[in-house]
């Protein structure tokens, strides 16, 4: 096998041929867990159904269960069927099932690791996975350490020969503060080279990132106003209408800021604020995002420019729901926030004086993620006060989900003989009913890992820089003895409204 083989049937001009991953296999640790069952396995099925997995693809499940292979195959099939986005075809499943293996055991059981090693070898020979394997750590972060070191100990982390690869996928949260993130990074870096580590933030699908990049840098008309001459402030919102549901064990003690602001919202902020990268390769993009994250500061007055709260019982979308403290498995004295809002300032020439307001929460009005760039009012309005009474600030809203698209909000004259100006919306949606064929975030993530395409995953510097921004906020909150509340189904606590009111601004209703 030589590394220099170029496949004559692949031509960069041939845009029809799908980018199928080369021969490879995926090992999922924690395959019986919620994430694997609900997301990963269906995504793998959908990829196979779309013909994007190589014929040799194989899947090894590793978990602490005594299934035999039939039982495992049955369960996996049921999970795939339940979660599949695309049409169910038994022929596709049968193909996948041919490469399905199960390795029972715990992480400290060396026999299980030997079993895993021999299963991988066997697949290389029988299925033709060619020594290429990705390890998906779909397990609590507390176990990352031991799994990674066992992979090392059993020689599974190193490729067999120069032509093959080993990769590892780590899910967020990447630590719970700067220190733990650094520790985690060190543990992984000791075993895998940085280009083999894939940190996945499934909230921020690659499609979204690329949409933002295309919008900002493929157009000439937005960039000239994308700065503090024209932009008044930016609001980044991630709202969920659901409560914590069955995630109590994970969520309590973590909270909204660590759960999504640290990774998802700060990444969105970096994409919105960064300078134009010199190219869209992994390195250039990372450099620009890092500049923003390195120059972003938490507010100086943490008491004035942050807000946190918990939902209390109320009516959300026509259903009476419990408050956070009433959810199963939450200690009655928990101070974990389910809503967090912070102001971030970016110290660059472009953004000086333009605050970025980040908010995230559960049990809010509706499920929505968006970035609203709010513009300054025109310096002079040649109208009477009455005429522009209903005119707000122009805004450009990038809707991330649901219904991905762009909304432009501007003033227009109300038809009629009087001069009256009111705000109107102009909407663009990524292709109408297009949703049915745009891939699920996990599908693209898994495919990128198998293709070895890392550009848009944050690397450890970005993770650590994000913690540096958030750590002071979290420490400030940790010193508080009480927490604000908001009724479920509303748009958050009064303290968050006051936080913006202090700056003479108010939250958009998304």
């Amino acid at each position, binding site marked *: *096998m*030589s590394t220099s*083989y170029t*496949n*004559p*049937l*692949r*031509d960069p*001009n*041939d*845009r*029809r*041929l*799908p980018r*199928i991953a*080369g*021969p490879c296999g995926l090992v999922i640790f924690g395959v019986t867990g919620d994430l694997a069952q609900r997301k990963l396995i269906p995504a793998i099925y959908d990829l*196979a*159904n779309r*013909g994007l997995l*190589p*014929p*040799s693809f194989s899947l090894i499940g590793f978990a602490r269960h005594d299934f035999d292979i039939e039982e495992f195959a049955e369960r996996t099939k049921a999970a795939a069927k339940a979660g599949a986005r695309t049409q169910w*075809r038994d*022929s*596709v499943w*049968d*193909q996948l099932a*041919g490469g399905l293996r199960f390795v029972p055991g715990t992480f400290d059981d060396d026999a299980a690791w030997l079993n895993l090693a021999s299963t991988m070898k066997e697949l290389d020979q*029988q*299925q*033709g996975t*060619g020594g290429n394997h990705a390890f998906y750590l779909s397990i609590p972060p507390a176990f990352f350490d031991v799994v990674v070191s066992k992979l090392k100990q059993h020689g599974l982390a190193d490729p067999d020969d120069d032509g093959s690869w080993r990769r590892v996928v780590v899910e967020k949260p990447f630590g719970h503060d700067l220190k733990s993130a650094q520790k985690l990074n060190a543990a992984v870096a000791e075993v895998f080279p940085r280009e083999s580590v894939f940190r996945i933030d499934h909230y921020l699908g690659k499609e979204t990132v690329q949409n933002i990049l295309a919008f900002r840098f493929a157009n000439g008309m937005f960039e000239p106003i994308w700065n503090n001459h024209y932009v008044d402030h930016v609001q980044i919102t991630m709202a969920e209408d659901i409560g914590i549901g069955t995630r109590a064990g994970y969520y309590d003690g973590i909270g909204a800021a660590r759960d999504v602001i640290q990774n998802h919202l700060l990444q969105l902020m970096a994409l919105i604020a960064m300078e134009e990268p010199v190219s869209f390769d992994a390195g250039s993009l990372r450099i620009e995002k890092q500049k923003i994250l390195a120059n972003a500061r938490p507010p100086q007055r943490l008491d004035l420019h942050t807000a946190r709260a918990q939902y209390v019982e109320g009516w959300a979308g026509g259903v009476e729901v419990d408050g956070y403290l009433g959810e199963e498995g939450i200690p009655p004295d928990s101070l974990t926030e389910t809503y967090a809002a912070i102001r971030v300032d970016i110290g660059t020439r472009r953004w000086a004086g333009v605050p970025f307001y980040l908010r995230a929460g559960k049990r809010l009005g509706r499920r929505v993620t968006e970035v609203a760039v709010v513009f300054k009012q025109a310096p002079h309005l040649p109208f009477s006060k009455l005429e522009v009474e209903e005119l707000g600030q122009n805004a450009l809203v990038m809707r991330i989900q649901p219904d991905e698209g762009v909304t432009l909000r501007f003033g227009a004259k109300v038809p009629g003989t009087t001069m009256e100006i009111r705000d109107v919306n102009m*909407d*663009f*949606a990524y*292709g*109408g*009913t*297009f949703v*049915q*064929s745009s891939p699920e975030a996990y599908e693209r993530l898994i495919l990128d890992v198998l293709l070895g395409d890392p550009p848009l995953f944050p690397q450890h510097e970005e993770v650590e820089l994000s913690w540096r921004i958030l750590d002071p906020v979290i420490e400030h909150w940790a010193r508080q003895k009480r927490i604000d509340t908001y009724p479920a189904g509303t748009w958050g606590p009064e303290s968050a409204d006051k936080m913006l009111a202090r700056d003479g601004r108010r939250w958009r209703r998304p």
Partner: protein
Amino acid sequence: MQIELNDTNASEIARAMVKARIASGSPAMDMVLTFVVITDEDGVADALRDATDLAKEHPARVIGVIRGSGRGAATLDAKVRVGQETSGESVLLRMSGQLVKHAESVVLPLLLPDSPVVVWWPGEAPADPAEDPIGRLAQRRLTDSEASSKPVHALRAVARRYEPGDTDLAWTRLTPMRGLLAAALDQTRSKVRSAELVAGPGNPAAVLLAAWLEDRLRIDVSLTEGSYPHVSEVKLHTDAGDVLIVREADTTTFSVPGASERQVPLVTRTVPELLAEDLRRLDADDVYESTVKHMLEKGTR
């Protein structure tokens, strides 16, 4: 909303479209292309259904053109539909008399401003798609040689007149098979010396597949007739051993040297799926061009 117009003209049709759009609450504001379907009374129902399905992935203004008899007075009837389970809008034009020779004069004013125009002939294609009066309005011209009474002949005819922007659906149908063959070489990583194909008689996709393999791999490909209507068997002789793909109905067996034989799904796609693949890119398909050029150089097969 649906509006029928008899003995009408393009500006009345355009007015009707605006009216229907407003009445339906403007569902069709973000259309990305105009999709012109040229068909006849027998094929119109299927063709419009396929085109509307396609509009789910690519919100489009669909213009169906039926050229009727060339005799008698020039008449134009139209049926405009907006909303109603489509994400775009559609208008069906029925022409007869002298007008059938000037169909483009109706289509031109109905094209969406600025956005691309695609023409599809679901049945027999014109002798020269790029020079056809309506074909000339379009960036992309889609023919379907398999729908012709003499498929291979039809494919060669459009290939001789190839202009950038032309493709034939026989080529689109090949994509999954081509993807599988590329994956086989990803795995085998070995030089291909020759290849054998088995396909149903007069199958244009098989002729294209043979030409593509010859062109890309610089080898000779033999094509023999089988009983399955499409490409049923592909064998690549490589230095490492044979790559073999055998297809029967919906099951396909795939074997490459050094790995055990496997079943792979290679499903037959519907026409809207094929069209959607074609419209994902609106620039010229260079690989198709190179393949049909090779096919013509090679002479009759």
